[in-house]
């Protein structure tokens, strides 16, 4: 076991305790039953190897098994891999596959499928940092795979769980006809995996039906006969659907509806689960555009924003403060940075220093703010709040409406913006979800969720490169702490808060998915009470 995991366990004692408390209650569910989950998202297809995101990830993790799975305490557990071990130099991992495991079409799972899967993900998945360090995968026998790394890569274990590394059958997905690539392979829509549930039917925009894999490699599992994902776009409708008992689980509950759901006698509301995802809501600046190229201006704005108001009033106390680029639920988080608590006088003083004096109407300059056109509570609402709030320090803000994602993405990725609200995921390890936003290399015009702030600090680059491959956890933590302090000072982004993945589930449900990946995790132990 790597020191990373030990560290992770130590620093997430709270999460562990909660997980144990939950496990203590857990009883053996009965066999059978249909689990109905609600989602607002419409997946393109079900192969997470070539598609990131929760829409594909949720059903994808039921259909495809991964090598490892993580429990509620950030602890890696055997899954398709019966065991795994690291070489002493941390540059090679040997994975032993479970014997007798088969894909849904009856083909046995071999180490060649593991190699094929890693190669496919490496070539097609947007998170290049996940397997960028993998040099080769050797297959000494059918049940052994040896993953060779070009540099140490502490994030590898996490990247082998959830939706990040689905083991896909080579004999199915290597067959490509003219004009086909892994990304548009027809079998992505009718996937063949080895997970606890098999794909049955997808009615585009309506529902997804999965059924029990009777040949599942974990004996006695899963409990459920069937999983149905119902796509319900409207949040209020999801609430009444749960209240009426027409569904058993949904996550990403809007804060506005939490109180109402808590009152329902048949439901349990929980904010556990999904800790690994780490979605940070932030305000990003275009650091190449005046006056936002001046750190003082960015700091002034940070001082003018009342993070407390956002958390307490706009998010109704549901969210937690995010003070830096790494989510507080991460082992690498440090609270020891400048937090820019509300101070309008300081904000005005900083603007004065920057030479931005108010005119006759008290206006210093005009600026626009964009927002990601999804999750209005976390995006549009805050942008609209900033309009009157920043007026208090003399900034005349125009909210730029983005009717849809492409419009917004075009502006932000094209660097055509002043400020924008955004929501970006940590994805478990900083290497996967954090580096991309701050390194100079990743200033790529036209690519959303690259370093669209165009922030470039060679010192930060150097720190991150070292942190990414540092196997020693104490040192790694120190490096990330340094990184957090620096960017909090430079402030290319003002981090606001993290809205946890609040979920609601039926009281009849046993072992609801409340782990670090929430329902992007095999639901083989979920079932209904007797």
């Amino acid at each position: 076991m790597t020191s990373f995991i030990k560290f992770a366990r130590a620093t997430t004692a709270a999460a562990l305790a909660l997980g144990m408390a939950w496990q203590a209650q857990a009883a053996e569910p009965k066999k059978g039953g249909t689990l109905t989950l609600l989602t607002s998202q419409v997946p393109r297809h079900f192969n997470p190897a070539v598609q990131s995101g929760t829409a594909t990830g949720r059903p994808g993790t039921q259909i495809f098994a991964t090598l490892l799975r993580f429990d509620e305490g950030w602890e890696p557990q055997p899954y398709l891999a019966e065991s795994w071990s690291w070489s002493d130099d941390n540059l090679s991992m040997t994975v032993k596959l479970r014997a007798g495991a088969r894909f849904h079409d009856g083909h046995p799972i071999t180490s060649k499928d593991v190699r094929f899967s890693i190669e496919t993900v490496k070539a097609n998945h947007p998170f290049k940092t996940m397997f960028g360090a993998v040099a080769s995968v050797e297959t000494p026998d059918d049940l052994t795979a040896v993953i060779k790394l070009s540099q140490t890569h502490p994030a590898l274990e996490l990247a082998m769980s959830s939706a990040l590394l689905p083991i896909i059958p080579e004999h199915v997905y290597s067959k490509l006809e003219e004009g086909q690539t892994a990304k548009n392979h027809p079998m992505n829509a009718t996937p063949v995996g080895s997970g606890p549930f098999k794909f049955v039917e997808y009615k585009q925009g309506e529902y997804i039906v999965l059924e029990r894999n009777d040949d599942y490699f974990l004996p006695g599992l899963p409990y459920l006969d069937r999983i149905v994902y119902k796509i319900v776009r409207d949040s209020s409708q999801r609430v009444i659907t749960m209240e009426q008992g027409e569904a058993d689980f949904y996550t990403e509950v809007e804060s506005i509806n939490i109180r109402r759901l808590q009152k329902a006698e048949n439901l349990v509301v929980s904010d556990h689960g999904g800790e690994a995802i780490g979605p940070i809501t932030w305000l990003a600046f275009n650091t190449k555009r005046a006056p936002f190229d001046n750190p003082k201006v960015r700091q002034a704005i940070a001082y003018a924003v009342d993070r407390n108001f956002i958390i307490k009033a706009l998010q109704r106390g549901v969210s937690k403060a995010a003070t830096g680029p790494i989510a507080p639920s991460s082992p690498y988080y440090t609270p020891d940075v400048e937090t820019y608590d509300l101070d309008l006088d300081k904000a005005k003083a900083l603007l004065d220093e920057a030479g931005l004096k108010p005119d006759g109407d008290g206006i210093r300059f005009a600026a626009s703010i964009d927002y990601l056109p999804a999750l209005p509570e976390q995006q549009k609402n805050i942008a609209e709040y900033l309009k009157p709030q920043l007026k208090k320090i003399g900034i005349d803000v125009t909210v730029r409406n983005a009717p849809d994602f492409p419009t917004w993405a075009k502006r932000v990725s094209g660097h055509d913006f002043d400020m924008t609200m955004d929501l970006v995921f940590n994805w478990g390890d900083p290497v996967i979800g954090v580096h991309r936003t701050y390194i100079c290399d990743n200033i790529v015009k036209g690519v959303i969720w690259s370093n669209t702030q165009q922030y470039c600090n060679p010192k930060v680059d150097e720190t991150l490169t070292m942190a990414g491959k540092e196997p020693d956890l104490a040192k790694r933590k120190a490096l990330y702490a340094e990184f957090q302090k620096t960017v909090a000072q430079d402030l290319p982004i003002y981090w606001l808060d993290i809205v946890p993945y609040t979920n609601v589930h039926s009281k009849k449900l046993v072992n609801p998915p409340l782990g670090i990946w929430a329902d992007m995790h095999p639901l083989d132990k979920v079932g209904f009470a007797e």
Partner: protein
Amino acid sequence: MHIASVLIRRILNAAGLLAAVLILCFTLIHLAPGDPAEVIAGEMGGATEEMMAEIRALYGLDRPFHVQLLSYLGNVAQGDLGYSFYFNQPVTDLIVERLGATLLLVISALLLAIFLGTFLGVVAARNPNGLISHFVTVLALFGYAAPVFWTAIILLILFASVIPIFPASGGMYDITGPDDPISRALDIAHHMVLPVITLSTIYLAFYSRLARASMLDVLGSDYIRTARAKGLAEVVVVYKHALRNAVLPVVTFAGLQFAQLMSGAVLVEAVYSWPGLGTLAFESLLRRDTPTLLGILFFSSMVVIIANLLTDIAYRLIDPRIRSGAR
């Protein structure tokens, strides 16, 4: 004019219209900011420039505009509406299923509106100062003035939450329910009630008023006096002799308003998660899924054209004067 030449003329006309719809909309969507590659990249959680280029090349988005347009039109002419960037499916497959749901909703709503509206209108016309007549007037005003999505939300909260007699999760049927044809049909009927009522409200209002005015007109006509002079019972006079003449404007408007009805369906589908073309249109618009969006515009235009044709046929069946080309 010869019937065949009329038919050929109409088909040519329809083909021209559809081509115009495709060309204009293709251009419009092309002009919109953002492209599918960005959407796909966004959904994947970001992408490198090479991946974006790869996606664009995969869907031919890197070719010049006119090449894309011509190749698209060429494909449509061969009956191929293309492949959805976003949903990874042939557009025709994607649409055909949704089209059924939308047509089920729209046609049920239209029939309800026509029949109930006509009935109310007739009853109101027979007693222009009676209670029903006032009710029709009030209904007409309210049905017209209340935004349809607003009615939808209120009905949903009222009849799925406060008095939970209809399914809250919307959709067309409950996939977890029994799947024998009869149970499924009943389930669909159960799911249809609120959307159909909501959508028909506006038109119910409209048609009842139209039918009332038209019926008043017809009841004052000479042939109604003739019918009465034959000794026919009032019911026969009204429902046999007057009604068939009075529904003519209703039928005309039903055809003309089919496009508007499809519009209303977009809003109603959005509230009730009805898996129709409206929802699909909105989703594909948000995702710049040009082939799907164009396919929807193509199909809905075609539906409107067919609806107009059917209106003409219905009109001919009801009114012999049109049938023989007189007038």
